[in-house]
């Protein structure tokens, strides 16, 4: 299987604990090798490019430069939408603006070729080889779970940076999540902004953004929302209860990282992907689906075994193909 240079980003080591756990579970099951970029640093995120453009490029480019030097030939993968956007911008500028590339190289005092591709987790899980490997390891079917895939802004916009062909209705995560047997519902707030760091520095203005996302997910029949970004996830998960309280809502939509659902479908326990570490209670809904799925799979396997008298051995629970 293809190897990747890994840029976890600062949140992966702290708030994005469920993202980290579930991803590590999947990687270990399918034998995915992620080589962490040695001594990586913060990409600068939103703050750097509101202050100093050169600093924003340089902080991100340092990571690409180290990866190119230490992990030559590997694509760089990052789980965070914001890191992805910043690294991708640096890479884009390095690729398309020779003068700026040289300037960045100068301040880094490292060679910055801008040759390594920058990928997000959705790009990674789009790889047919990885998808095949996941399919082989599937042990549960999450059928019956209606999932609203939330992409946020930076995975798809601006399209010249991300290369997304349909920023209004991206489908990558939907396709990945449907591997689990769950249904990725059509909804309209896939790429609406969650407010990002404004949830901290301008909460009085930004909370309504989260409310609107939950409202649309609920209106379209979502049981859960899945994200592919530590910050989006935290903004939704951590504030759902507060929204319910302050806005007088009754949302009951747990928020997962998409990797959590995949890990669960692959047989991970609640502890394996940190279901108990959610802010908004998430265990019940997923437990329900898993139980129903198991019963159904058992019944099907039984029926199958009856149909085929030659088939013997223990009843295999799972591998219920879609």
């Amino acid at each position, binding site marked *: 299987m293809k190897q990747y240079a890994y840029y976890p980003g600062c949140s992966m080591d702290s708030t994005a604990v469920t993202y980290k756990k579930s991803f590590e579970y999947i990687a270990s099951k399918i034998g995915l090798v992620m080589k962490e970029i040695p001594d990586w640093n913060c990409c600068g995120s939103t703050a750097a490019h509101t202050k100093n453009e050169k600093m924003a490029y340089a902080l991100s480019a340092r990571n690409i430069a180290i990866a190119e030097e230490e992990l030559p030939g590997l694509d760089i993968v990052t789980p965070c939408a914001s890191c992805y956007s910043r690294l991708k911008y640096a890479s884009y500028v390095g690729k398309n603006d020779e003068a700026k590339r040289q300037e960045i190289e100068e301040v880094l005092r490292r060679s910055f070729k801008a040759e390594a591709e920058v990928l997000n987790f959705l790009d990674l899980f789009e790889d047919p080889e990885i998808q095949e490997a996941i399919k082989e390891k599937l042990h549960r079917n999450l059928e019956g779970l209606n999932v609203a895939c939330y992409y946020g802004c930076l995975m798809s916009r601006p399209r010249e940076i991300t290369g997304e062909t349909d920023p*209004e209705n991206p489908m990558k995560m939907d396709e990945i999540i449907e591997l689990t047997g769950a249904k990725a519902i059509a909804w309209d707030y896939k790429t609406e902004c969650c407010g990002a760091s404004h949830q901290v520095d301008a909460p009085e203005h930004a909370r309504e953004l989260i409310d609107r996302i939950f409202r*649309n997910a609920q209106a379209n029949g979502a049981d859960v929302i899945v994200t592919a970004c530590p910050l989006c996830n935290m903004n939704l998960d951590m504030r759902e209860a507060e929204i319910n309280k302050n806005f007088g809502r009754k949302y009951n939509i747990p928020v997962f990282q998409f990797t959590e659902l995949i890990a669960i479908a692959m047989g991970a326990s609640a502890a394996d992907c940190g279901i108990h570490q959610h802010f908004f209670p998430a265990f019940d809904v997923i437990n329900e689906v898993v139980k129903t799925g198991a019963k159904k799979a058992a019944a099907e396997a039984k029926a199958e075994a009856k149909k085929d008298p030659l088939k013997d051995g223990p009843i295999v629970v799972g591998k219920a193909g879609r």
Partner: protein
Amino acid sequence: MARIGVFICHCGTNIAATVDVEKVAEAAKSMPGVAYARDYKYMCSEPGQAMIKEAIEEHNLDRIVIGSCSPRMHETTFRKMLKGTKINPYLLEIANLREQCAWVHTDKAKATEKAINLVQMAVAKVANNKPLTTSTIPITKRALVIGGGIAGIQAALDIADAGYDVTIVEKEPTIGGHMVMLDKTFPTMDCSACISTPKMVDAGAHPNITLKTSCEVEKVDGYIGNFEVTIKEKAKYVNHDLCTGCGLCQTKCPTKVTSEFNQGMSKRSAIYIPFAQAVPSKPVIDPQACLKLTKDKCGICEKICPIGAINYQDEVKYTTEQYGAIVVATGYELVDWKQMYPEYGGGKYEDVITGLQFERLVNASGPTEGHIVRPSDGKEPKDVVIVKCVGSRDPKKGKTYCSRACCMYSAKHAHQILDKIPNSRVYIFYMDVRTPGKGYEEFYDNTRKDGAQYIRGRVSKIYKEGSKLIVKGEDSLIGRPVTVEADMVILATAMEAAPGVEEVVSKLGISMDKDRWVQEAHPKLRPVETQSAGIFLCGTCQGPKDIPDTVSQAGAAASKVIGILNHDEMETSPMISHVDQTKCAGCGYCVECCPYKAISLVEVPGRDGNRKVTKTVAQVNEGLCQGCGCCTATCRTGCIDLRGFTNDQILKEVDALCL
């Protein structure tokens, strides 16, 4: 040796004030081939012309140069003058001593020197002029109209009323086009079908009009006065000569598909008459839908047709006909907004409809018998949003142009909703309201008085929550975002040239602009002509427009056609290209670059040593060639030349200039 006469005009003092005309005439006398030269006050005047004619006789001149005003001014005058003499009218050159010498210079010595040089060039050129004769071509007194919408019907009726045969070629099974789909027409609110169906019937019944429905133009040859057009008639699978139009077949047909006429909002059978007032009112079979034709099953229509008009073996037929003039009236289609605007749902929501769908919805003969209801659940909408400029005025996602009719039809839709649904609310998101037409601004005024809310701003997103469509816009006049919870959204989608216009245009050898509209010869002064003589255009194939403009343009195109068909024959310009076929290598480069498709490759007998062979050479169609000369510069062997502006003539001019 040529005997050239040079005549230098004073033009009063216009030329004489800055150019020493006597000196020019004097200098001309010593130019090669000049037998006679003189100056005169007004060459174009009666006595001036008489003087030239006398000099021709007296000095036995065989070609003349006139140093006067621009050839664009008096070339034709002097050519006409020469018609009465022994000199061929094309053995004339004019040196432009007024507009391009006397009037633009002040230094008399230098201007005189330039004038002498200009005369020299004209003398050098005229020595190489060849006598040319205009020829005449007969005119076929029939017209072809491509497209049977209101533009085509109007043009055909006008031409037919003037006494000429007209054929209407329409690709659909009926004429009528878009107008007959509309409910009411602004600003007078006439019933659209009530005023257009009589015209359709007139066209169908007119003794001079032949309707060719389910037909397309396959091939066009020839030129003004003599077009030869091959028309392809698609298989109808119903013999219209036998069919009485009883309609029994379509009531029994078990296959139902989406109705084009009702814009996808109802079903029709596989054998169908598009709508009740269709002309001809006879069915055709849709070969994609028919069970008999696709799976060899069913066959019910054949069994129940009382006169045996059904013919499953029907095939495509080709006929070739002669026409003197052609009118292009291929019309429009609405842009495919679903591809352009994913932010408006991209077609996900049934209750986001186009203006044309609304026309069917509100029409008494439409799928809901005129009740305005939501396509999704059949409920009457209370809050309706109309979004203007969908696909128009949008360089990134759609077309740059303004689609012109939308402001008015949106106002009309608002009026109809407010009128038909009590307590309804209509919100119109607009960027500008454009109402340039008689009674239009007043109509817009009344719509606002009816209660339509005009909100200035473009809509950013339309999505669904529950049964409501959420429309997000900005009220840019107060500078706040607005959200409207609507039951139905009507998009005022832009018009674009009908699909297939590319093929029609390339078959006719005319052109399109960057937006695929058929190009008129001149936007102001030749608005219904194309750059190919004898081919005219009208209606929305030329650009977005409303019905009054379409109908007036159709009348204008018809009058141009009548102007041609009125003559028995027409004169052609002799200043066109011709090929020296002995030198032509048949490379075909000239064929490629000719904008009029006037050059073709033909096989002619030739010789290779003593052997007789056939060789491929270029040939110019004299009726099509407009004399631009583009081909001459592309010819490798120099065998193609432009009469009146031959290589020899121009080279001699160049030489004279450089003396």
